[in-house]
């Protein structure tokens, strides 16, 4: 059995979290280049040019890409043959604490949804654990902005609603909230599972690169189709009107109950900040 020290987790995650907030990464930059070429509205192109400049300044000057440095979301895939010396959840939260303090990131997390006191260090993170084969720990970090998160939705569709119902729900969700979520967007769709499973899948999907494609050709085609129809909504960059509303759509699927068709749409903004580390 391999041993990983809790401190190693903390250090590695802190680095990933700071870096994700300063450097939007090559895939998002490529998505911005393609968006600039595709956008037909001048106001929309100006927004994309500003986003590109912003990405450069943030990376070169080591400052946050967006002031909302997000809710820290961590997908932790823990190999069943790895032993963590210390408390893994504490180690993850310590990594977030370190990143948000040392990296001059904004602390946006409140202790309680009703009493609303800032915890002061952006913890606790939302952590999704999965036990996987092997002796490694893979952490996927996302800084999830509140503005785009607020435009996300889940629905328990009827099985009879079928594929058309799913498409309609995705379109309605982006149509209603897209302009407020800092488009161009990355849309994560979680399909199937139970109520909560669909939401977790949609988050996983939203934290991916817009160029990721579902390995199943049926869903890969649906991702492309949804991207095309979403870009016909006309919302455009920042909602000023235009032909690029989304940079990409990612779908994650899970088996579901015979009476159910859960679908969740997690809206992510152009500040799709994520990073991974394996220990």
């Amino acid at each position, binding site marked *: 059995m391999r041993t990983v020290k809790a401190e190693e987790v903390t250090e590695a995650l802190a680095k990933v979290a700071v870096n994700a907030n300063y450097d939007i990464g090559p895939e998002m930059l490529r998505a911005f280049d393609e968006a600039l070429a595709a956008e037909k509205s*001048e106001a929309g192109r100006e927004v994309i040019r500003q986003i590109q400049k912003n990405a450069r300044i943030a990376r070169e000057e080591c400052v946050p890409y967006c002031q*909302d440095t997000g809710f820290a979301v961590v997908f932790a895939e823990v190999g069943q043959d790895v032993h963590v010396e210390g408390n893994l959840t504490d180690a993850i939260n310590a990594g977030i604490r370190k990143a948000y303090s040392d990296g*001059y990131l904004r602390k946006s997390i409140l202790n309680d949804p009703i009493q609303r006191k800032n915890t002061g260090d952006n913890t606790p993170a939302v952590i999704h654990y999965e036990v996987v084969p092997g002796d490694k720990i893979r952490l996927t970090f996302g800084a999830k902005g509140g503005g785009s998160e607020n435009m996300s939705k889940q629905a328990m569709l009827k099985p009879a609603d079928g594929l058309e119902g799913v498409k309609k729900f995705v379109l309605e969700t982006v149509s209603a909230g897209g302009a407020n979520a800092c488009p161009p967007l990355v849309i994560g769709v979680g399909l199937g599972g139970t109520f909560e499973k669909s939401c977790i899948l949609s988050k996983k999907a939203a934290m991916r690169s817009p160029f990721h494609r579902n390995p199943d050709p049926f869903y890969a085609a649906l991702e492309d189709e949804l991207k095309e129809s979403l870009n016909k909504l*006309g919302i*455009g960059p920042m*909602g000023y009107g235009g032909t690029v509303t989304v940079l990409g759509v990612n779908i994650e699927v899970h088996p579901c109950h015979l009476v159910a068709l859960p679908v969740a749409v997690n809206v992510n903004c152009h500040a799709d900040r994520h990073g991974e580390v394996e220990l």
Partner: protein
Amino acid sequence: MAEYILKTPLTDADVQKLRIGDSVRLSGTIYTARDAAHKRMVEGLDKGQPLPFDIKGSLVYYVGPSPTKPGNVIGSAGPTTAYRMDPYAPRLMEIGMKGMIAKGKRNDAVKEAMARHKVVYLGATGGAAALIAKCIKKCDIIAYEDLGPEAVRRLEVEDMPLVVVTDCHGGDLYIEGRKQYEVR
């Protein structure tokens, strides 16, 4: 779509010439406030207390910056979503506020008040927070320091890049712009 260079404070004439889709480079003094600060300002007004700054001709920027790195003027400072300030904005327009800077759609009550009081709503690019911070040359906290990122700040800005998203003639770029590109 015209381009304007504007300096604060704004007059009725400044606001009236602006139409949706126009781009604006703004220089001068602006004030920051978001949810908690708006609540406090409006509650103060109800009790007859003065605002922490001169509201006449002013522009209020809805922003909660990230912490300032040593050597910088301010942290990253992009706009927050405006609709949460909708319940408070008309009250500030009544007493002389001339502009709001933020992102996202406004409700009808805000748009009506904007037409009545000659107020403009300027959009800053959400998420372009490092770029916008570059336009901020000076930053002082002037009230509600206990609110942290939500404290009221006085900012000196130079050539802040903005777009007219709602004008005082009833124009709304979120509606009109989309109409132009929507394929049904």
